[in-house]
């Protein structure tokens, strides 16, 4: 393992969207057992430094690979495609209309302190996310990078909405 390998290489798995989560976690632990700084508390400074760098790298790779969103973004990046999260805000009209409606439902649920509607909203969101993840998997496999990037932007949008639901729940609880 060296610092120039990509995340997939570090974990010794093929660079594809499909990843076995259980195997990934197992491998993560095997890797950390070897490189974690706790294993080098008595070692030379040079070894301690290398250990910290490698353990940091293993953590970064794991965080990226375990999250479908980050994994998709990383695959695009490996193929030289910029998902343009900041600059490209065009979304299909249909998607945007659906999102506007979702936001309104959130505001209403918060105003009415209606937990059941909040929970239903979360479940809806998850269904939508799963559908988009299925789509992006097909697009990535077919190497349709531009289309995959567009799906990823929508997924990012949904992720932010998920955070808003979380923030709303927190507010209602306090």
């Amino acid at each position, binding site marked *: *393992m060296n610092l120039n390998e990509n995340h997939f290489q570090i974990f010794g798995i093929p660079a594809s969207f499909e990843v076995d989560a259980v195997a990934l976690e197992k491998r993560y632990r095997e*890797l950390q057992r*070897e490189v974690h700084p*706790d294993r080098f508390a*008595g070692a030379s400074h*040079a*070894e301690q430094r290398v250990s910290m760098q490698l353990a*940091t790298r293993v953590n970064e790779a794991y965080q990226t690979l375990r999250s479908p969103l980050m994994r998709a973004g990383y695959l695009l990046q490996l193929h030289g495609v910029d998902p343009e999260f900041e600059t490209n805000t065009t979304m299909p009209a249909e998607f945007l209309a659906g999102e506007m409606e979702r936001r309104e439902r959130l505001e209403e649920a918060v105003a009415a302190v209606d937990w059941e509607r909040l929970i239903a909203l979360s479940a809806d969101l998850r269904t939508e996310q799963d559908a988009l993840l299925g789509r992006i998997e097909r697009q990535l496999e077919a190497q349709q990078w531009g289309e995959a990037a567009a799906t990823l932007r929508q997924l990012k949008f949904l992720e932010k909405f998920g955070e808003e639901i979380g923030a709303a729940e927190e507010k209602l609880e306090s």
Partner: protein
Amino acid sequence: MALLQISEPGQSAAPHEQRLAVGIDLGTTNSLVATVRNGIAVVLNDHEGQGLLPSIVRYLRDGRVVVGREAEREQVRDPKNTIVSVKRFMGRGLKDVTHVENSPYDFVDSPGMVQLRTVAGVKSPVEVSAEILKALRARAEDSLFGNESGELAGAVITVPAYFDDAQRQATKDAGKLAGLNVLRLLNEPTAAAIAYGLDNAAEGIYAVYDLGGGTFDISILKLSKGVFEVLATNGDAALGGDDFDQRLFCWVGERAKLAPLSAEDTRALLVKSRVAKEFLTVHAEARVSGALASGEVVDVTVTQKEFQDMTRPLVAKTLAPTRKALRDAGLDTADVKGVVMVGGATRMPHVQQAVAEHFRQTPLTNLDPDKVVALGAAIQANVLAGNRRAGDDWLLLDVIPLSLGVETMGGLVERVIPRNSTLPVAGAQEFTTFKDGQTAMSIHVVQGERELVADCRSLAKFELRGIPPMAAGAARIRVTFQVDADGLLGVSAREATTGVKAAVAVKPSYGLTDAEITQMLKESFDHARDDVQLRVLKEQQVEGERMLSAVESALREDPDLVSPEEGSALRGELDALKKTLSCNDHRTIRSAIERVNRATEAFAGRRMDRAVKRALAGRKVESL
């Protein structure tokens, strides 16, 4: 049948090679030291058989310092010079300190950390904490070495999981000041989980609810096959048993219609409030009574119900962080298999009840909540000191409790490392210049979850110098933030287009500079009539020995990873280092250590590479 033990490379098996290390719980109210003896973690007692050392330090006019029970006895008579709960001030400015009005101290508002004026001079919380650590170190050395001379291999010191970088740095500084080799800062709930998990062979999701004297932590951990993985942590670094005392103290004051009290009376009444609080844990009512210095007599009875009602908001305050931690972990209370209670304040029945209601299960209280943290720290210290035995294959993965960010335009925070990232972790941010030919810029690092810089904790202001002069916006300065396994931040910067490394001048907002530590060390040793030069020399010699044995054992394990030329160069540096060890100039030893370090860098990388390949191939030495 006796089995032959074969140790993995890097692990020592021979018992005579056991290096003695300790775990220290540096608590708000009490501190403890523990070690692993014959494979069992034990708390080390003082001469009177007491494990708990009250975290109280008294400074006397003649320069003597008294720590623990002896200081506790004098706290009412001499409140200004007897410092209790100093942990609340670690890494904190005066404006962050709660209950200032009820604190009898003479605070000095200095830049960075608040200081306390005593008869022995102005003391920083780091110095006060170092006195507690010194007392524990002396107790450990006494108990482990007796009259023989010996040196502790190192110590693991615990900190609240929710401590930020400034508070952690202050704790590590205190350890250094006490002459300890700080192997690791360990989060208190994680330490408790180690002690609990290893004892009970626990598997699954566990919550550790840790309400100490001055801090509250909640950690959500996943325990499986010897891996302790912290999924999320949250808390309140200024909420603990002390606040319950304060609440009762105020209530008694109102009941007895007391005028503002003197420092002595304040301390006396606070102590009585604390005793009453503890009494109410098992009794229906308690009496707070006594005569004040003013001649006034206080005699108030408080029932358990009254006490619980007045402190219920404090208990409720622990539940919001608990919910947040679960949400961050992506879990629900139903996923939690067990709730481990830690900290003396969890003895209060209404705390236990609130936790039980929240998690819908009876919390686990079978471990002594006062001792479990020190025991966990001792187990970790033992392993870090190199006493890992076959079967001690567990791994600890902890997280950073609060997000790290940098200040951007308009006083906003740009997040660089999100909270609950597994340690060690790094994050990078690119900056550019806004003026032609600009060669320096300043970067402000903050920690916290709020969007405005003003609402977060200022950790450091960095000056980047030596940026190659270019047109405005052309330079690409990549600043890397590295957080190590202690949760401590380091920063480096590089100009990307030219590769020029920008110099980073660190001006910590709260921590101590190296020069300040050196100065403090010097003063404290002067005072103890110790020779600071001798101490530094000794440290370098120990470090040199450690280095020699680490590199030599690495060479024995992987001789094929060094080319003949590299090997002979390395051996040359090792011999040179060996020769310097008997000299009495610490600088010579230090530079020899540095040369060995440089010579061994590439070798270290290759060794790590081999270890990783072994892990990937799933062929570990023990399974061959």
